[in-house]
Every structure is written in C-alpha cells, then in structure tokens.
C-alpha cells in the first residue's frame, strides 16, 4: 500500500480510538474475490473518501460495516464493537448510531416524506429523548431545505430532492457516523454540488464522521480529509487529495486520469 499521509494532518484529525476499524477484511462471491485484505480506520469528525472504479467492491465494503454483507475473514469494528460477532439485537442497536445514505436514496415509496421520517423514529422512540416527533421531523427537513415537501410521495420528488430527504431520514436518529454510498451519482453538477455542501454542513453542525464511497473526483476533493484508493480488493493508496494527486505511482496516476476524464 502506498501511504502518503502527513503526520500533522493525521494527529490533528485523529484521536486514539477509531469509530470504525476494518482490518484484513476479505470477501468473495464465488470465485470473485472482491475484498482481499482491506484496512480502513475512521476517526471522529473525519471525512474519509473511498475511491474506486465501478465493481471494485466499494459498496460491498460499506455494507460489511452495517452487517448487510457478511465478511469471510478479518476484523470489522464499529464504535469498538465487532460487527460479525453481534447478536441481532446488538446489531440493531449499533445500526441506530450509523446512518446510511443509499445510492438510489431508498425512500419507502408507499409512504409520504413524513412517514419515511417517522418510520425510524417510531422504531427507536428512546432516541427522541422526550422531544416531539413532529418537531424532529420538521427540524430534519429544515436541515436539508425541504420542509415544504413533508406531505409529498417519493414519486413526486426529483432525484436531488430524494437524496436530500434520504439524508434527512438518516439524520433523524442523530447518528455518530454516516456512510454515503455514491451520494452524487446520477445527479446533475449543480444538484451534486448542493449535496456536497449539505454533507459538509451536516458534518459541521452535527459533528459526525463520514465514510464516503464515490468515483466523483470533485466530490472527493471537496469533502475528504483523507482518501483511500480501493484497487484489486485492497487499499492501494492512502493520503490527502493533494498528496495522492502528486503521486508518481503509475496505477494511481492512471486512476486519477481515468476518473477525471469522465
């Protein structure tokens, strides 16, 4: 692995206890070895971007973090707890601390926007801390600038609006970590930029840490504190955008050239 990390940046962002720790993670689907020993650490208030080509296993990687995909080998710890060793109840509890923004937004299409936000709240009433449900929903929608869409159905929303509502649904349980799966894919540049700014705003206001999966270099450049290039199932290179963009390694150079040319 090529590591270019500047120690000053590292110490200013990182604390000794990572929120997420993946070590030597391997995952295969039949003869397709997707992850071959992946290592990732995410620290509080940090934005780590994982870059990789389509089909490189980026989505599998973040699904391993919430137990949606079972790993074959390695360590996956979230908030100090081992995900593969958890019972269902423990896993459900830890999942409330981890928000997940899906690539296609994954709004429940038989429910209104209000009901989409109500759904996680009602299931985890203990996290409302005595606050009024309606106030929390409106607050979450205000954070993404869509309070007027409260009674609309997902089918009535544009792609960018759906992504923002999904983000509001993710935020409503006030997670410590947010996982973004291709947050800007399929969006026009203006809407993509709005989503990027929203992600930064959320991090500032809620002090969350984020792991962002993308192949959008502009998104990666603006959002990331640190970037990991996922290639051949391992974290091939790691560092800040500036550092990685100046690496002379032919694979990294080729990767940057290919992604930027899109």
């Amino acid at each position, binding site marked *: 692995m090529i590591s270019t990390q500047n120690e000053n940046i590292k110490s200013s962002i990182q604390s000794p206890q990572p929120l997420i720790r993946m070590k030597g993670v391997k995952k295969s689907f039949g003869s397709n070895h997707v992850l071959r020993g992946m290592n990732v650490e995410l620290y509080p208030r940090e934005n780590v971007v994982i870059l990789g080509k389509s089909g490189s296993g980026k989505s599998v990687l973040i699904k391993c973090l919430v137990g949606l995909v079972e790993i074959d080998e390695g360590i996956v710890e979230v908030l100090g707890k081992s995900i593969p060793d958890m019972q*269902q109840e423990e896993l*459900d509890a830890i*999942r*409330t601390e981890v928000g997940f923004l899906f690539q296609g937004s*994954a*709004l429940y299409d038989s429910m209104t926007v209000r009901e989409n936000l109500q759904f996680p709240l009602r299931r985890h009433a203990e996290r409302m801390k005595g606050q009024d449900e309606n106030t929390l929903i409106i607050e979450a929608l205000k954070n993404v600038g869509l309070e007027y869409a409260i009674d609309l159905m997902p089918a009535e929303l544009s792609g960018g609006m759906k992504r923002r509502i999904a983000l509001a649904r993710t935020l409503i349980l006030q997670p410590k970590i947010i996982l973004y799966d291709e947050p800007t894919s399929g969006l026009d540049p203006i809407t993509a930029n709005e989503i990027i700014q929203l992600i930064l705003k959320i991090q500032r206001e809620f002090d969350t840490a984020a792991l962002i999966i993308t192949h959008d270099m502009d998104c990666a450049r603006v959002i990331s504190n640190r970037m990991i290039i996922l290639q051949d199932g391992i974290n091939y290179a790691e560092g800040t955008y500036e550092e990685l963009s100046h690496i002379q390694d032919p694979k990294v150079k080729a990767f940057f050239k290919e992604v930027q040319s899109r």
Partner: protein
Amino acid sequence: MIALPKGLQSYLNETGNIAAFAIRFFRQAFKKPFEFKELLRQCYLIGYKSLFLVIATGFIMGLVLTLQVRPTMIEFGAVSYMPQMVGIAIVREIGPVVTALICAGKIGSGIGAELGSMKVTEQIDAMEVSGTNPFKYLVVTRIWACTLMLPLLIIAADAIGLFGSFLIETTKGNVSLTLYFNQVFDALSFGDLLPATFKSFFFGFAIGLVGCYKGYTSGKGTEGVGRAANTAVVVASLLLFVLDFLAVLVADIIYEI
C-alpha cells in the same frame, strides 16, 4: 454418486428454500415485537381491496354454473335438486379454489412485485440498517394477512355465488329466496363447511408465503421484479392445487372413519 438432472436439482433447491422461508416465518411470527399496525394495513389492502374482484368473480361463477348444469338436471328430472347441487359444489370446491386462484393472481403477484421492487431499490436494506427487522415487518405481516383474509374472501365469494345461482333459478324456475337458501343449507353439513374453511387458511398461507418468498429473494433489476411477480402466481397456483388435493384426501379419510 448419481447426479440429478439440472431441472430436478433446481426444483428441489427451490422447494427447500421455500420450506426454509416458511420455517423462518414460524420462528418470527410469534416473537415480539408484533407489527399490529402493519398487519391491519395489510389486512385492509389484501382483504378489502380484493373484495370487489372476488365478489364479481363469485357472482359470475354462480350464474355460469347454474346455466351450464340446469339443462342436464332437467334431462334427468332432478331440477329440484339444483340448490343442493350448486350449494355443495360452490362451498366445498369451486368457491375456495376459484377464489384462491383469483387471489393468487392479484395478491400473490402484487406482493411479489412490491417486495421485489423494494429489494431492487434497496428499501429492504434501508429498513434493516435503520434497526428494523424487514422480514418481520414486510413478510410476517403479509403472510398473516393472507392467511386471515382469504377465508373471509372465500366466504364472501361463496355467498355471492349462491346468490347468482338463485337469480338464474328464480328467473327460470320461479323459486323464492327463502326456499332456495333453505334447500342449500339443508344439503350442507359441518362436514362440508369445516374442511372447506380449514383449507382456505392454507390457501391464504400458501399465496402469502410464495408471494413473499419470490419478492424477498428476487434477483436484481427490473427483470428480477417481473420474474418475481410472474413466478409467484405460477408457483402459488400450482401449490393451491396440491393443497386442495391433500385437503380432499384428508377429508375423505376422515369421512370414512
């Protein structure tokens, strides 16, 4: 070791997977927390929203059956037995099977397509990462709703089918409503009603189980959703005939004892 033909292998695999899905249902169906609100919503969608279709088909079934059978009954001089004959035929066999087939088409494909599309658009994953058990919320409630609603739909279809039959009888033979239904109920015993009602619960369970299984395990993409909806109807319909045969066989053995 003898290698089984590929078609047989996949048939056995599918049967095993459906059985495992059913076991998973029974493991979770009686475990807290219960999703009563979603169960009620599904009962409304599956029961109430299918009522018109079931009533319409039941009514036509009664009309057609009477029109078709009446000439033969006249030929044998047994036209006065029409209410008894139609009553037994509808309550014992035609009502439950036809209604269940209609429901397999409407409800089974609907569940298959809905869950399949939820799977493809990652809504099921989203539910899971929000700390909700999607199997319990989506599958258990739908199977329960089908199991509980189908007997009620079948009773409605039977009743309206008998009424349809009465309309033909009264038009052609001048029979009063009281006389017609008295004759129907005189001909029916608990031995007719009980197995028919009992098997309708199984029919509902089979429709719900197959629809949920096909949707919940559907492949990726729109093709997967289409296939889930389609195979849900085919497999459920086939399973209904197998269950019907078994129910008739068991009832027959019980009668003999």
